């Protein structure tokens, strides 16, 4: 179903090397000033980065804007990329940074009257929101898969941003713990504990929204 380009999910030896080499050569060409080499990197990673942004933001149009900005930012700072991590990991971290910035801006734009779903200190409001969500969405219960996905996305959106990040990276993007650590610049223990909390939180949220998960 989903094309997975992360090393531990595909052939651990050959494919990993090929992908890495490919990216490296294009990155090198970009650093030499070949703008067209970047087109290959865009072509290769646009879908994955768009999905990452979309799952983080929850809005398709905004996710497209964020990815576009992220690619632009990556192009500007490609000289700083030294190859310590894979290019996709580095690019993923840029997309996540852009997404965080976008969410902050959106929160500011909506203002105080509009509740911020990402606010970790506003537990009461969040609960209220989830309850409303379930009432709203209960009307669409039993409908098509698209509705279910919309609900899952809404559930994801009510999670704290840092929990959402690890969940998206791990379960949707299929990243390894090491890659998540590199992307978020976190030690493995923190990644693990954050992921456990995020899973439980999502499970609770989904149970409230969907009811039966099967």
């Amino acid at each position, binding site marked *: 179903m989903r094309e997975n380009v992360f090393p531990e999910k595909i052939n651990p030896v050959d494919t990993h090397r090929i992908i890495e080499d490919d990216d490296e050569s294009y990155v090198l060409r970009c650093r030499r000033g070949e703008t067209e080499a970047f087109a290959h990197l865009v072509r290769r990673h*646009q879908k994955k980065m768009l999905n990452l942004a979309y799952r983080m933001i929850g809005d398709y149009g905004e996710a497209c804007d964020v990815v576009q900005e992220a690619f632009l930012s990556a192009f500007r700072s490609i000289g700083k990329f030294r190859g310590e991590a894979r290019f996709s990991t580095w690019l993923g971290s840029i997309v996540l940074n852009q997404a965080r910035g976008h969410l902050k801006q959106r929160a500011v734009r909506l203002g105080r009257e509009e509740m911020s779903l990402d606010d970790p200190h506003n537990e009461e409001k969040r609960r209220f929101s989830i309850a409303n969500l379930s009432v709203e969405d209960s009307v669409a219960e039993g409908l098509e898969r698209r509705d279910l996905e919309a609900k899952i996305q809404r559930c994801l959106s009510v999670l704290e941003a840092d929990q959402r990040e690890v969940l998206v990276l791990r379960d949707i993007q299929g990243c390894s713990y090491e890659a998540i650590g590199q992307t978020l610049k976190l030690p493995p223990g923190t990644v693990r504990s954050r992921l456990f909390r995020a*899973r439980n939180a999502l499970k609770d949220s989904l149970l409230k929204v969907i009811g039966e998960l099967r």
Partner: protein
Amino acid sequence: MTCQEIQNLLPGYWENLLSPEERSLIESHLSFCDLCRRSLIDLKDSENLLKHLEEVEPPPFFEQRIMSRIREEAGRKKGLLRKFFFPIYIKIPLQVMATLLIAVLAAYLYQKNEPEMKPMLSFSVPYSEIQKSPMEAESLKSAQPPAGAKEPESLQSNKPSITATPSSPDPDGALHKKDQPRFAAAPPAAAREKAGESVELMRPKEEEKAAAEKAGTSLGGLRDKEDSVHRQALHKPRVEEQEPIQSFDAEEKEGKKKLEMAEKGAGEKSPLLRSAPTPLGSVSAKTENRTVINLNLQVRDTSQAVRQIEERLTQAGARILERTQGEGRALLKAEMAYPKFASFLNQLEEIGRVVFNKETLSVPVDRVTVLIHIFK
């Protein structure tokens, strides 16, 4: 362990990331706790739901949209880079080349302008030579030795009289010597050094030429004589720079005395009689706002020419500063406004043949002092 603690660890259990102790603890708890078992199942289901979320597709022309912005950015970045941050391997050679080009150009311009600078420098130091050099050149021309064998001697004998006039036993020399210390500080040191250098450079050449001429006496003839005179006249300004510096007044006195001596007898070997107008006959010295212009005027009748010139000078609003007349020659010195000089020059050409260095008029000034050497 409470159910809450167990449920917190369930994701790790599910991903097989716990220690064997933790695993056995959880397994033993799950064997009797339905709630935690249910929680584990929900955890698996939620993960499955997430993993099977359908991927969204990028919008059409998403890559092109991104790349158009990237190209735009790259163009701007390149422009800035080109302007300020050239690759160092291009930038440094370019800078070196530019520096060299400027240096070469500066040297070339300096060399090109040097001939114009030299007369200015040398003239500003020995002012007396303005008057003396044309006359001396003429005297050399007029007092041509009869045979080629005598020519070197005459040249040799001329040299000291030109370069070392004070050495003669006449009262001129005494005056000259007396005046010398008074005006010794007049010229700039650099100019004197330069003059000295040029003299040093010239001397061997002159000696060589004299020796060559001595050796080749049989080849003597009119052409040779003229050449030697010409050479002498050309070398003179540099050689004369050795002379001590005198004031303008002292030079004028000297000039007068020389003219007087010229009147006494044509055969005498005074510097004045031996002098002749140089081919280009004039040198200029620019002071603050005036220029001295030397003119050589060849006429049929000197006394008549002097009268005519004086009339023209008066018409031009000039102030006649000095008038000395000798046999077949005269010297007029006048000062006039610079704009009137051109018309005056035209009038002079009606009187006789005018020779002067037109380069002296290249820099406009307020007033000009004209020294007119009139001769037959």
